[in-house]
């Protein structure tokens, strides 16, 4: 009996591992789909030839694929992966299924940072001007999370305190943002509004490389903490009695989350929903063993963003919608359907 159950458990784990593998493939297909869609209406064959460098293609096609579409597609993949991984870890360490970089004010703080560059023209002295928006957004997002942790520690409180501070921070950053918008010129305002809708249009190879580096730096540590994070799902006391140093786990995890979220948001602006939905969908698919849950969240986020990026080019023909709008408008109903179906199955 117990040998049988153990065997079933192992089979279930193999199935989950396989599912994560399939999700990786599907995410790559998502990138490909994102690559072959666009207003230029390139034939599929040309796009693939340009991508693989086999056969003759027009110079224009090559430019479109390599300098317009590919950075956008790669950036979509990375942003989705980073935000969803950050959301998954945040939900676990803050013991709250609503936690994600967006709800805790990180995105609003990043928008405030961007506004300081766009409206006030502030920038770091050693950076080229083209980076000032991203750099300020990054610093503000990171600063918001650092402030959050500091306040949480001063108060000596648990996750609820952090979440309350996060919500307060969100409103505070929002108020300052409104203040800046109030004094902004029409031009700057336009630019800022576009930024706060979240857009992949300004994606560059350097930006993508930077985000990829941060992801490559953080993800291994996340995966290494998988069992400790799983244990934390039993509550703080239990995790501690299992030998987990909960304070240190929470501190390092929030540091990783900060880096991931701040970098992602600084590149593409405010994108809600992915950090929340990625982990929820992953949980429905593979459960909460973090060895599977974390990579599945990352891959779900990547796929959702690739699809959103694709849709942003297709919904209104000839118009590139801000991708943040697409994730919210189209993602939400899908998300609700998934949750309701998950409920009904029980």
């Amino acid at each position, binding site marked *: *009996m*117990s040998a049988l*159950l*153990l065997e*079933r*458990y*192992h089979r*279930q784990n193999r199935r989950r591992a396989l599912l994560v593998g399939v999700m990786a493939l599907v995410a790559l297909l998502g990138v490909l789909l994102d690559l072959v869609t666009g207003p230029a209406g390139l034939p599929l064959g040309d796009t693939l030839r340009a991508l693989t460098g086999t056969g003759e293609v027009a110079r224009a096609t090559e430019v479109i694929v390599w300098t317009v579409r590919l950075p956008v597609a790669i950036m979509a993949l990375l942003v989705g992966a980073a935000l969803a991984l950050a959301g998954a870890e945040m939900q676990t360490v803050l*013991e709250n299924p609503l936690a994600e970089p967006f709800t805790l004010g990180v995105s609003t703080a990043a928008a405030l940072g961007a506004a300081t560059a766009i409206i006030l023209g502030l920038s770091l002295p050693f950076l080229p001007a083209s980076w000032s928006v991203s750099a300020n957004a990054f610093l503000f997002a990171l600063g918001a999370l650092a402030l959050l942790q500091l306040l949480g520690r001063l108060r000596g409180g648990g996750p609820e305190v952090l979440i309350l501070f996060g919500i307060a921070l969100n409103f505070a950053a929002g108020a300052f943002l409104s203040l800046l918008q109030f004094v902004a010129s029409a031009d700057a305002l336009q630019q800022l509004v576009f930024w706060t809708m979240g857009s992949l249009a300004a994606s560059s190879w350097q930006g993508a490389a930077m985000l990829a580096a941060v992801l490559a730096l953080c993800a291994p540590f996340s995966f290494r903490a998988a*069992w*400790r994070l*799983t*244990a934390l*799902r*039993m*509550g703080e*006391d*239990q*995790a*501690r*009695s*299992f*030998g*987990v*140093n909960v304070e240190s786990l929470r501190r390092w995890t929030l540091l990783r989350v900060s880096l991931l979220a701040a970098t992602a948001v600084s590149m593409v602006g405010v994108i809600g929903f992915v950090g929340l939905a990625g982990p929820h969908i992953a*949980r429905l698919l593979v*459960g*909460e*063993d973090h060895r599977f849950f974390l990579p599945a969240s990352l891959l779900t986020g990547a796929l959702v963003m690739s699809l959103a990026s694709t849709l942003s080019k297709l919904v209104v023909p000839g118009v590139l919608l801000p991708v943040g709008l697409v994730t919210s408008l189209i993602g939400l109903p899908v998300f609700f359907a998934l949750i309701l179906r998950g409920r009904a199955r*029980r």
Partner: protein
Amino acid sequence: MSGLSIRDVSIRYGKRVVIRDLTLPDLPAGQVTVLAGPNAAGKSTLLRAVAQLGPHAGRIMLDDADLARLPGPQRARLVGFMPQSLPSGSSLIVLESIIAALRAAGETPAAQADAQAMAVLDRLGIGALALNPLDQLSGGQRQLVSLAQAIVRNPRLLLLDEPTSALDLARQVRLLAELRRLAAEGRVVVAVLHDLALAAQWADRIVVLHQGGIHSDGPPEKVLTPAMLAEVYGVEARVERCSRGNLTILIDRELAPVP
């Protein structure tokens, strides 16, 4: 010395002193000790302090090791803690949650952890639940899972906070018999228990906490007296032996409530 010893332990919440200079030497292996006392006497607080889950002053030693000074993973191998309840809303499956109790601190190899977790579930008679999600279990089943998490690391010291609170009569008896077996295997077992009749039947020793200190400490027949029940719980009660020889407590009425 061997076993658990608690010396000069004080615990305060802000300015309120919950436990004052409490000393409880030599709780040896092989015995089941019950911590009793009225609500807010500090039973759970003391238990959590022993498990190093809450701040406290004083020394808590297990076989000459100061529990406060041991690194987390090492302490986890020595001490198992069963909380009052597991958080609801986790879709982890039972077996995973037990394996996590073994692997969170790192050392157990995967195959061994899986087998060990399954064996513990079988031992507690809940093997059939192994693949069920935690959030679909009843309160009593969850309590047994949480006991499994506490004993899977084979701890020398087992601390349980109201382990029978959600269990039906048969399962209460089964759990307490299991605690006796766990103690007989060479463990120190300390449980907070509200049901004094159960304590009388299953404990080797009852420690009654009252007003931040120890009111009485000894074998059930010595501790459970009408005088103690009147002083600590504020009830007029009789303690009688039933035909099988077990102590039973009959509560007649509440005395004038003591502030």
